């Protein structure tokens, strides 16, 4: 019997690739003005939003005229907040009365690599309700953890993609799935 020492030997490096967050500015934004005066914006008039890209924390923000802003592309939660604040500051400079409220990290995407391969059909059989595998549609097994609201995509090469509401949930999800995956390697 192989001991399930999930803590001792494993130093799995979980790489966060994307953090999505939202915040409000509590004021109406004139998209046209932003589009004209911002240096790095794309104005999508047909959908009614402005895309603004920042270089320093490399993020892309979608700005709506209602004042809601979605910020993607950050690689950590702090970076996301920093980028959001920078964005709000630049909007302030453009002349809008911006108030930085309702900041919330909505989604975190991370990648993780297992040092072994995984037998997907066996894995699905052992984890029936949570795992769903449809080889005709997607090569990975989709495993959902309801309690954490996290979704993991498990590939046969051992690499796992995790999405969850925050970084902690993502880490917990990986820890939870490790023993199951270890069984079916």
């Amino acid at each position, binding site marked *: 019997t192989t001991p399930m020492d999930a803590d001792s030997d494993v130093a799995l490096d979980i790489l966060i690739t994307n953090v999505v967050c939202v915040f409000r500015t*509590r004021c109406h934004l004139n998209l046209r003005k932003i*589009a*004209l*005066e*911002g*240096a*790095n914006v794309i*104005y999508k*008039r*047909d959908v009614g939003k402005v895309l603004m890209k*920042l270089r*320093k*924390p490399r993020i892309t923000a979608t700005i709506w005229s209602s004042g809601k802003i979605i910020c993607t592309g950050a690689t*950590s939660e*702090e*970076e996301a*907040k*920093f980028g959001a*604040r*920078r964005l*709000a*500051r*630049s909007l*302030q*400079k*453009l002349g809008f009365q*911006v*108030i*930085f*409220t309702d900041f919330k990290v909505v989604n975190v995407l991370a990648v993780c690599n297992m040092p072994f*391969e*995984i*037998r*997907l*059909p066996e894995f*699905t*059989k052992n984890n*029936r*309700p949570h795992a*769903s*595998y*449809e*080889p*005709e*549609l997607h*090569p*990975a097994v989709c495993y959902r953890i309801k309690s954490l609201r996290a979704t993991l995509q498990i*590939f*046969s*090469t*051992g690499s796992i993609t995790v999405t969850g509401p925050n970084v902690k949930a993502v880490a917990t999800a990986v820890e939870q799935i490790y023993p199951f995956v270890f069984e079916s390697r």
Partner: protein
Amino acid sequence: MTGRVCRGCGGTDIELDTARGDAVCTGCGSVLEDNIIVSEVQFVENSGGGSSAVGQFVSLDGAGKTPALGGGFHVNLGKESRAQTLQNGRRQIHHLGSQLQLNQHCLDTAFNFFKMAVSKHLTRGRRMAHVIAACLYLVCRTEGTPHMLLDLSDLLQVNVYVLGKTFLLLARELCINAPAIDPCLYIPRFAHLLEFGEKNHEVSMTALRLLQRMKRDWMHTGRRPSGLCGAALLVAARMHDFRRTVKEVISVVKVCESTLRKRLTEFEDTPTSQLTVDEFMKIDLEGECDPPSYTAGQRKLRMKQLEQVLSKKLEDVEGEISSYQDAIESELENSRPKAKGTLASLTRDGSVEDSASSLFGEEDPEDEELQAAASHLNKDFYRELLGAGVSSSSGEAGGPEGGSRPPALESLLGPLPTAASLGISDSIRECISSQSQEPKPDPNAAALCFPVAGARGDGELDLSGIDDLEIDRYILNEAEARVKAELWMRENAEYLREQREKEARIAKEKELGIYKEHKPKKSCKRREPIQASTAGEAIEKMLEQKKISSKINYSVLQDLNSKGGGSLRGGGAQPQERAGARKLSRRKTPAGRSGADPVSSVGKRLRPMVSAQPAKRAAVGETLLLSSPSLGAEPVRPTAVVESGPVSYPPEEDPDEEDPDEEDGEPCVSALQMMGSSDYGCDGEEDEGY
């Protein structure tokens, strides 16, 4: 019946007719129950003398045609719709299933799944076709039939991923675990399509063995089973001397050519491919392979490692080169006369690049001398380098150049390794900085240092750590703004033009007065069934609710209760038309409701004829409603009455029914008289049929 109270008038005199299965109030004539299910059995004598049981058949699916009228419109409508949905679903399932050649048991199971789905409201917001396909596919999976989701999507002409999404959702909601697809299931089907004749069985067996081998070699996880099948069948066919081209196979198996080739290549990589046909049939290799994507990943890793090793070697080489160069320079210094002192000092202090450029930039006599010396040294140098065995970078650089311009070699050698060293050190620095972002504040990462701002509850912007200057750069000045505006205009010209055209169109329509504003569709609210004490009230309320027509004389409506002859206004619909229309509205059972449009249009035309006979109306209503059961036996609802439509028709029918009475100001006529009157031609016949 004991103690039943009529909802309409409150009277207790209810007549129960078990033969027809009705409960009718004799006071106001409203039907309280229709199609009562009774437990007694009655017999009726036929014309031939035999007796037959009294009753009606109630279908299993339909849940009967409604027990209670009047108060239960909501329930009735809901149930009826549900029954219709199930019926419709059943029909579609059979239609699709027969195309797939599924047996009856599978179809029944699929129908059960569908019933479950409907009861869980999973059909809401989804095309019925998708849900049906998902149910069928679920059955296919649980039974293990060789049907692919692709087949279903072919039949329906729907994107296979959309179907897959619905299918996954269904499986999840119904908690049904569909067993994983085994490519072995598809082999007989494809083999049959590829027409191997007598050797069909043998080829299938070979292909099966191949597949099992592939499974062992980790080729099948995460891959479309049909692709694997295709590859296995192709190889099996070739093994048995059948010529099956890739094109034929992909037309049967429905994968792309590149996919098939890729599978074949992967199989080629496995050691099994080295066996001959006979060997393969007999021996089974013990070792297992890694999955192909894993090996590809490993290969990439190895490449990276190689590169790293090479770069390290470069560094070593560079070290050697620099040491050689130092040696050369010191030699040159010593051999140079003092006039070149300045230059020598320069070469001593400057970097290799400087020395190289200074070497170049010398005056001619010095140049020649130096060139001679350099070339002499270079040759040795070059040979030494080659002897050292590092041919990667210096060889490339030195090789083509070495023969032609010896001085250039040195200069190239100079910048090259140093450039390389620079590049490497840069990347190393980057790596360090990116790795140590959080723990170590690195000078590079200083700007990225994220002060974790305390939560500012009041919503103020925390400016710590934000570099204002940089943000200022984000804002364009006027000229730039203008240029950008023009660029944007040019790019989105199409969209802007469309907007302008649309506005122009709307303006024109407004002028012409036919401007139809397309409001976003609001979901139609279910209207409350009209509770009214008299039919007249019912009509009023109904007219209030529905769109007010300009053709109705409302003053007449006000005098509904009185017997004053309301003058009929409006559209002079002829009696024939009316009667004909009425006949239509009655007899038009095949079309049934057909969207209720013809009826409503008929109704609108006939509505102008609103006369003032409450009793007559009531009686008419009664006849209407009474006659409905007879028509109700047919599956399609007649226009009159009760259930099956969102709009409550009975009040509307009343004005309809009044139309035939052109006689204005007629006194209250008894029901019998009405029935006997010629206007009620068709009705009279029906009633007499009772």
